């Protein structure tokens, strides 16, 4: 912990200690709502009928309004008739399947909450083709990443945690493989524990990426020392760990957005954002390097001018290694935020295009997948209320999406 962080912690605690003493006031809960006055059964029946009719009309109006708003927002026709459109969408150039992790509320699961589920889904229809239970003794799937073959994935499963202590529970990597040709038959989805290092309690895989050929796994692991970049050679092998403790004046985590692989199976892009260290921005790590210093073994590809604004929320490199996409978030002092999907050239480090600028509601934009050259992207959170879609040639085509999904990988 840095002197500044120590000072901040002491100031916050000292401030809390200045609170005038005394027990909390008694809790006054609201009374349950009751009908006013007696209601005859006949009148009650009519009232229920009237309420139902009003509800139907209101719901109809809201749905119609929502569809109109969605069309206005995305600039094209939204899928209708519920989450499954009657006809398959034409979604060009994207993988046919993805693995989605779902929780009851679509938020990142609390480790002590109900177990999460992993499902194999069809991109075009959204149909669930297979459901994978969390293997014991683990409690919840917390992360997923995909190789480029459309049927190899790595998942992280975590044990149940204690919400009172807040301690991050231990977790483990699993390899998921399925045969796309016979997905509907039982037994074609295999999940097996990878014989690579466990992630001990107190540490967690923050972001991860599987290389295109599925033989290397890069993961940002949060530890008590800050975040470190692990690269595993699958299926076996201890990780090669890169840290950045040599960065003398830096503090905190350092790695801001998770790793992504170029198709050479050697280059990993990540976001490093702690000043005053020079070289903040998107850096490219040579994973064949033998060192352990994240900064020495990587080079700056897309410089970030300042850590203050905008916030760089996610970066991803295209498999051809020539383009970086980033989600940038403007955070003014007021209450209004918006995000930009920005394209950068790796060769020049310069911004080459802003692809969209959605306002932020209760969602955030995330680049789920990029084609080899970056001409097609799969993004989620670009629409109000969430959702996902394909962005190609400036046109956004929504795909079926469940609000319960909190992570997905193509």
């Amino acid at each position: 912990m840095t002197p500044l962080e120590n000072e901040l912690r002491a100031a916050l605690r000292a401030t809390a200690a200045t609170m005038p003493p005394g027990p909390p006031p008694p809790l006054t809960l609201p009374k349950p709502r009751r009908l006013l006055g007696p209601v005859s059964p006949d009148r009650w029946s009519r009232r229920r009928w009237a309420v139902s009719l009003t509800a139907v009309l209101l719901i109809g109006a809201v749905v119609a309004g929502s569809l109109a708003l969605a069309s206005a927002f995305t600039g094209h026709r939204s899928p209708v008739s519920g989450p499954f459109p009657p006809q398959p969408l034409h979604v060009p150039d994207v993988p046919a399947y993805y693995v989605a992790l779902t929780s009851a509320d679509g938020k990142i699961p609390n480790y002590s909450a109900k177990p999460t589920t992993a499902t194999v889904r069809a991109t075009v229809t959204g149909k669930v083709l297979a459901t994978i239970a969390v293997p014991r003794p683990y409690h919840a799937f917390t992360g997923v990443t995909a190789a480029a073959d459309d049927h190899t994935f790595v998942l992280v499963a975590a044990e149940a945690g204690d919400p009172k202590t807040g301690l991050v529970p231990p977790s483990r990597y699993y390899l998921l493989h399925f045969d796309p040709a016979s997905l509907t038959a039982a037994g074609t989805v295999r999940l097996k524990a990878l014989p690579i290092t466990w992630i001990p309690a107190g540490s967690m895989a923050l972001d991860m990426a599987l290389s295109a050929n599925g033989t290397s796994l890069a993961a940002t692991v949060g530890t008590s020392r800050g975040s470190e970049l692990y690269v595993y050679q699958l299926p076996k092998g201890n990780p090669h760990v890169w840290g950045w403790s040599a960065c003398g004046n830096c503090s905190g985590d350092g790695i801001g957005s998770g790793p992504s692989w170029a198709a050479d199976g050697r280059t990993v892009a990540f976001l490093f954002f702690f000043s005053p260290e020079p070289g903040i921005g998107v850096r490219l790590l040579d994973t064949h390097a033998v060192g352990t210093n994240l900064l020495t073994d990587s080079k700056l590809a897309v410089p970030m001018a300042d850590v203050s604004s905008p916030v760089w929320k996610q970066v991803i490199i295209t498999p051809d290694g020539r383009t970086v996409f980033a989600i940038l978030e403007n955070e003014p002092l007021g209450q209004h935020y918006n995000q930009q999907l920005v394209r950068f050239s790796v060769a020049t480090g310069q911004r080459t295009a802003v692809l969209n600028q959605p306002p932020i509601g209760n969602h955030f934009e995330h680049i789920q997948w990029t084609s080899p050259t970056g001409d097609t992207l799969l993004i989620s959170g670009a629409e109000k209320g969430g959702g996902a879609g394909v962005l190609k040639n400036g046109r956004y085509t929504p795909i079926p999406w469940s609000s319960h999904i909190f992570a997905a990988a193509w």
Partner: protein
Amino acid sequence: MDFNDRGVVDEIHSPGALRRPRDAEAAVEALYQGYAPGLIRLAYVMLGDRPAAEDVVQEAFCGLYRRWQYLAGPDRALSYVRSAVLNGCRSTVRRQAVRRALVIFQPHAASAEALVLSGEERQEVMHAVRRLPARQREVLVLRFYLDLPDDEIARTMNIQPSTVRSAAARALETLGRALKEPS
């Protein structure tokens, strides 16, 4: 296969022992007894005013009670109520700002812990903290006052862990810069 993960949805809405009003009342009361002091202190750090902090926490627990049947489970209650307290503090600060009554509060009494930092230094740090955007301020308080891990902060604030890390980094950067500047 239904896209809506009906099994999950059905679990949420299934009637359970804790969903009955009387049990909900007892459960919320028990949570209040256990967690209200800490949450009031959290709100006090954010607001600097004990009555306002008590109001925010009271309202958060009332909200918890109203939504009890919709919670995915009792173990989500603390996360919910912590989020509600943060939201309540944000609203209160906004109202105070509108009334131009946003003040850097004066501590009411000294204590042994308060003396770890001199009053002046603490005021300076807190002054800088209160000038941060809401999200950054909340991340700092959750991380350095409550010592929550980043994933728990993310759940509480309904943001991504990467956003937590970037917000914290930027907040510390701004804070460091502000504290170096001569006041």
